[in-house]
């Protein structure tokens, strides 16, 4: 819990989390280095790994480096609940974009690009 003397924690904790953040960052970079998803042609595993590493890293930064873990619940909830409504926005936009995409293809004659399975497929030239 916080007190008037501020957030005071052992240095070792920061070094551990610092190291962990390097490992997690390396993990997310390796997703791209090994072309996870592109190699097999289905992206679900790639997307799942991206999200896992992202939330792990964000969680450690907020909880330990920003000390949120040790703050009072009143502050934690005031900070974490409002961004929750953003999920509604993301949901609405995802839902709507499906419809926009279909409209473009069906009524405006947009040509559907083939799903890119390897980086070379996506880029016409270099």
């Amino acid at each position: 819990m916080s007190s008037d003397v501020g957030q005071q924690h052992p240095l070792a904790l920061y070094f551990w989390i610092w190291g962990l953040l390097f490992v997690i960052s390396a993990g997310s970079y390796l997703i791209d280095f090994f072309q996870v998803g592109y190699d097999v042609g289905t992206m679900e595993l790639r997307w799942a790994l991206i999200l896992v590493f992202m939330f792990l890293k964000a969680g450690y930064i907020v909880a330990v480096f920003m000390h949120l873990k040790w703050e009072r619940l009143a502050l934690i909830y005031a900070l974490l609940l409002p961004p929750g409504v953003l999920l509604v926005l993301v949901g609405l936009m995802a839902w709507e974009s499906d419809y926009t995409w279909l409209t473009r293809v069906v009524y405006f004659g947009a040509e559907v690009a083939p799903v890119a399975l390897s980086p070379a497929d996506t880029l016409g030239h270099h």
Partner: protein
Amino acid sequence: MAEATAESTGLKSIAEDWSSDITTFKGVPWGKAMMWIFLLSDTFIFSIFLTSYMTVRATTAEAWPNPSEVFSLTLFGTTVPLLLIAIMTFDLITSSGTMALAVNYGYRRDKKKAVIFMLATAFFGAVFVGMQAFEWTKLIQEGVRPWGNDWGAAQFGSCFFMITGFHGLHVSAGVVYLIIISYRVWRGYYDNTNFEIVEITGLYWHFVDLVWVFIFAFFYLW
């Protein structure tokens, strides 16, 4: 009103903190609470950018340029995917670590070390902005514009410049902020406080790193 006699926990503690007719965020210096509120509003700004990016990427029928190739670097004849972005990520993580140390030394009233680590943080931040300038220059030379590029969906450029540009501005502002605050800490402005100013500055800096985590995941890796 006097505080509740017995300390409650869980949801009850939230209700009591908000309804006690005194400071809601107990034990939190006002500057720190205000920085958190500012960061909350900034969270909404960046979330809206990323949501817009999701929307334009999902609605375009054209192929999305592959970030893994667009941001690859060729070193000694080998092309490494996303190399510069990986280096930028590690640079920002390094700066977050030095910032955490600065906050810790601040609360230990070790002014000298707090200032040194804050300046180290500012240095890594400046390096990040430098690498970003390099990245922008490279892409602009390759013909990426906010209104189009040679590889696919035109929206790629507008999302890229808007999102990384706004983040880069935050990093640049953070570097200036860190330098000003470390100067003031050094000059003794905060000597009769607990040096919570270092933690407040740190909150801003860690937030900049936090935003990068999401940009890296959604823009560069997805």
